[in-house]
């Protein structure tokens, strides 16, 4: 039986039997996996308070000979992100980020970048940063990491390079922007200002630590959110259910 040790983010837990827990967690190397923690609900030593949702923990686990269910041997809490528990808004945004990660990244698909992004985003939420802004930053980057980045380089119709002069128009079916000559603004093809196009480009590419420091004004958030909604709903038909709790 091979043993693993990994820093992980607890995504969901489900009570099983008298004292066991079925835990879904995200690892940088192994991606989203499931494990059973025997006696976890009674444990005061092996699993002291480490299976709460959104917690960052160090987990030791091993794979059973058959199947893909891991056996969790011990855990140590690193950060419970206590700020997330202070209000329903933060909890809802944290839940949304967890659910979007689940949708974008299948079971067992290891990706260090999404792990880092989720950790940085939960940390920013816990610090009391603006939840709406964190969610926008997270969504843009997570969609990019999941293969649904928005093409902002050139017009998706005529191929002309977008130089940031004048508004661009978002086209959900092409996953990118078009110039105003090719596509007029409508409810399903909203216009995006050059400043916001630049911002989305940054969000898709800059390092995570800088990403969470990016300051988004309310007007930028209001402009980006409809674009993200159209993009998400078109490419992810089974969208996150937690979106109904977001303000």
């Amino acid at each position: 039986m091979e043993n693993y040790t990994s820093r992980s983010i607890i995504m969901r837990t489900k009570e099983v039997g008298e004292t066991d827990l079925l835990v879904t967690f995200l690892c940088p190397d192994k991606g989203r996996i499931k494990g059973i923690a025997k006696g976890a609900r009674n444990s005061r030593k092996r699993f002291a308070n480490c299976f709460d949702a959104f917690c960052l923990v160090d987990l030791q686990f091993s794979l059973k000979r058959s199947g893909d269910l891991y056996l969790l041997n011990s855990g140590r809490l690193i950060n419970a992100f206590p700020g997330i528990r202070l209000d329903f808004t933060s909890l809802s945004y944290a839940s949304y980020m967890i659910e979007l990660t689940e949708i974008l990244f299948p079971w067992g698909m290891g990706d260090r970048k999404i792990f880092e992004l989720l950790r940085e985003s939960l940390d920013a939420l816990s610090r009391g940063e603006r939840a709406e802004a964190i969610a926008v930053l997270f969504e843009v980057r997570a969609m990019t990491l999941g293969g649904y980045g928005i093409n902002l380089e050139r017009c998706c119709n005529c191929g002309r390079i977008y130089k940031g002069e004048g508004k661009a128009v978002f086209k959900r079916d092409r996953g990118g922007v078009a110039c105003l000559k090719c596509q007029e603004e409508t409810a399903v093809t909203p216009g995006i200002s050059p400043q916001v196009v630049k911002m989305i480009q940054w969000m898709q590419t800059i390092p995570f630590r800088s990403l969470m420091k990016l300051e988004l004004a309310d007007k930028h958030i209001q402009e980006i959110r409809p674009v993200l909604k159209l993009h998400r709903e078109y490419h992810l038909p089974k969208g996150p259910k937690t979106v109904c709790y977001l303000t």
Partner: protein
Amino acid sequence: MEIYPPPLERLIEQFSRLPGIGQKSATRLALFILKSHKELSQSLAASLIEVKEKIELCSTCFSLTDEDPCAICRNENRINGIICVVEGPGDQLAIEESGVFKGKYHVLHGVLAPLDGVGPEDLKIAELVARLDKENIEEVILATNPTAQGETTASFLVKILSGKGVKITRIALGIPMGGDLKYMDSMTLQYCLKTRSPVVP
């Protein structure tokens, strides 16, 4: 292909629908029922029917009861002005077993959990607010579990209840009896030290 006769297969299937019961456990239970006296099956079936027919929610505190209002809400010896808010009937039972709380309860029937599709309107929060207006409540004790969802629910209730003219308290959080500091997580220890209380000789 079904291994067992259809009636037994049906019983196994019914057992395996229960939480925490897998196919193997369901088979074990079904075979046990089959081997036992007929009286066991009859009393088990009667209890299942009885519990569905007679158990309901107390219209005041939303605890499980066979008589509305429940025994605690009817009890005139209980303190009227204090309500302890708990997540579920199991939590109420645990507090009752401790024997120290003499007030009344309010059962939320869950906690705020967006990942599970549970929002404020799915809990008995509006009913709690209505009780504050109706009854002469002086203190509300928030006894939700110290999990992310439980803490958030407590914070949400604080926002809702503040300004209603009642004292709002939260159950203490810290090292359990018989616990060992060496094995405590850093968050609990931080909280314990921040909320330490003076010792009176």
